[in-house]
């Protein structure tokens, strides 16, 4: 596409140095655009981690009917203990459930008047983390047929909701990526056209001494590419700073709530975004300079 000879890099450096205010403004605009994309990617990657964690929640709650007898419970516990992947089985009576709720969620006792049916007896099952959703669903289907079982909660619905959220996040990221693409094209293209106007005399001289289109355009394309990459790096720096600020304050709460520590963008994503910025910047500069000053 263009040569990266010393003359090109020297002219690009000279252009960046002489038009540094213009380039700084352009990089800032690109950073703002890239921050939106990076934020959405950060949310998606963390949601994916939560989804993965919850898809292997490792537990299920089997709610028993009110008329389930101790014999039913004992039989169910024995049967469950023999199922492959089940690590432990624990019976929680209606009274214990009320007590736990009162201790954890309602210390003031404002909901003490709730009827006994609000706290059904259950069997809490610890499932090995390598048991997949499909196998757990099969077990649940079998359990639900038993006469003493009222309902089975596997937290699959949470996983489904998270999966839908992730899909939504990915779609939002794709839309943001398109917006970023358009922003880069507009910002870098305009900057390069403006720079070209400001360096009209230089282009005229280059034409006179026999420079080819490629030679004339090359430094502008290098500048565009650097702008795009710098915009992406700037966005990562802004997002990284924001992440560090928020991370220390809400880390514990989020970990307790979702069972996953929030993490920053993986380095592959960050690198990919910088590369995307560089490529988009070069393409935008090239498109913006389709019509060069003619002499």
């Amino acid at each position, binding site marked *: 596409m263009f040569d990266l000879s010393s003359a090109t890099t020297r002219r690009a450096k000279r252009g960046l140095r002489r038009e540094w205010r213009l380039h700084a403004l352009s990089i800032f605009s690109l950073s703002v655009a890239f921050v939106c994309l990076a934020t959405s990617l950060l949310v998606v990657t963390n949601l994916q981690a939560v989804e993965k964690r919850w898809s292997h929640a490792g537990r299920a709650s089997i709610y028993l009917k009110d008329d389930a007898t101790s014999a039913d419970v004992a039989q169910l516990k024995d049967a469950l203990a023999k199922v492959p992947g089940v690590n432990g089985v624990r019976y929680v009576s209606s009274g214990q459930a009320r007590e736990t709720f009162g201790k954890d969620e309602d210390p003031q006792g404002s909901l003490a008047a709730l009827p006994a049916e609000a706290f059904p007896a259950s069997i809490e099952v610890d499932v090995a983390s390598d048991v997949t959703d499909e196998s757990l669903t099969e077990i649940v289907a079998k359990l639900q047929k038993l006469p003493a079982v009222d309902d089975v909660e596997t937290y699959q619905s949470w996983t489904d909701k998270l999966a839908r959220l992730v899909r939504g996040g990915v779609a939002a990221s794709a839309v943001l990526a398109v917006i970023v693409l358009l922003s880069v094209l507009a910002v870098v293209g305009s900057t390069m056209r403006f720079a070209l106007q400001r360096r009209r005399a230089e282009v005229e001289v280059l034409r*006179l*001494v026999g420079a080819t289109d490629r*030679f004339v355009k090359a430094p502008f394309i290098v500048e565009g590419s650097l702008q795009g990459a710098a915009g992406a790096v700037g966005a990562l720096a802004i997002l990284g700073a924001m992440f560090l600020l928020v991370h220390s304050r809400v880390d514990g709460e989020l970990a307790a709530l979702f069972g996953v520590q929030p993490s920053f963008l993986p380095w592959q994503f960050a690198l990919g975004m910088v590369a995307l910025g560089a490529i988009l910047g070069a393409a935008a500069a090239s498109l913006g300079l389709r019509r060069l000053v003619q002499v």
Partner: protein
Amino acid sequence: MPGEDDSRPFRPKLRAGARFGADAAQRPILMFEDVYKSYRPGAPVLRGMNLVIERGEFVFFTGASGAGKSTLLRLLYRAETVDEGRILFMGRDVARLTPDSIPFLRRNIGCVFQDFKLVDSWSVYENVAITLEVLGLPQRLIRARVGEALERVGLDGRGSDPAGVLSGGEQQRIAIARAIVGEPALLLADEPTGNLDPQLAIDILGLFEEIHESGTTVIFATHDRTLLEVRPRRVVVLDNGKAMDVRAGVATEDDDFDNELPV
């Protein structure tokens, strides 16, 4: 045949004419054949102009303002295209070159203008070196050749000065150094002394003559009559869209165009 295979790009060696065979060296460097050019319908600037310029000549183009001197030069380095006719430069029709070939044509032609056409923010060195950077020469060679060119135009040691702060005469010397550093076959000067005082103008003309003595063909467009009288040279007067050739210079008896020149 001249003009045959005209779409081939110029790919010059640095030395003028090095790419061309012995027969090319025998041909005139420049031939205008029935050249027509107009910017407005019914008002042609050039109408059927014919002219031959041999290698190594020093030719003044002169004529009143608007006679077509600048147009003629712009046609030569393909900033404009002829409406009709041919301009053969080293046997090739300039008008038929593809856009991709134009840069290679320009590498064979050095241009100097009245308004210097320098990049003010660049240093003197950078303004001259760009001609060789375009050719992709190594920096070591560029440094040596730019040094030689600056020495030839009397700007030795001024390489690091910003071009914009130099005087008019010095800026024109930079432009001349830029034009000659690539050792072009042809040097075009379009009113190069137009912005200079008379003494500086004569100095600059002397510089062109020195360059000419080293074998470069020079076309010097001017309407300054005093310059034509400095030394007898071939003078081509542009009048009414045609070229009138006065081989012995204006200081001869054949002076019928003289009244049309501004004094």
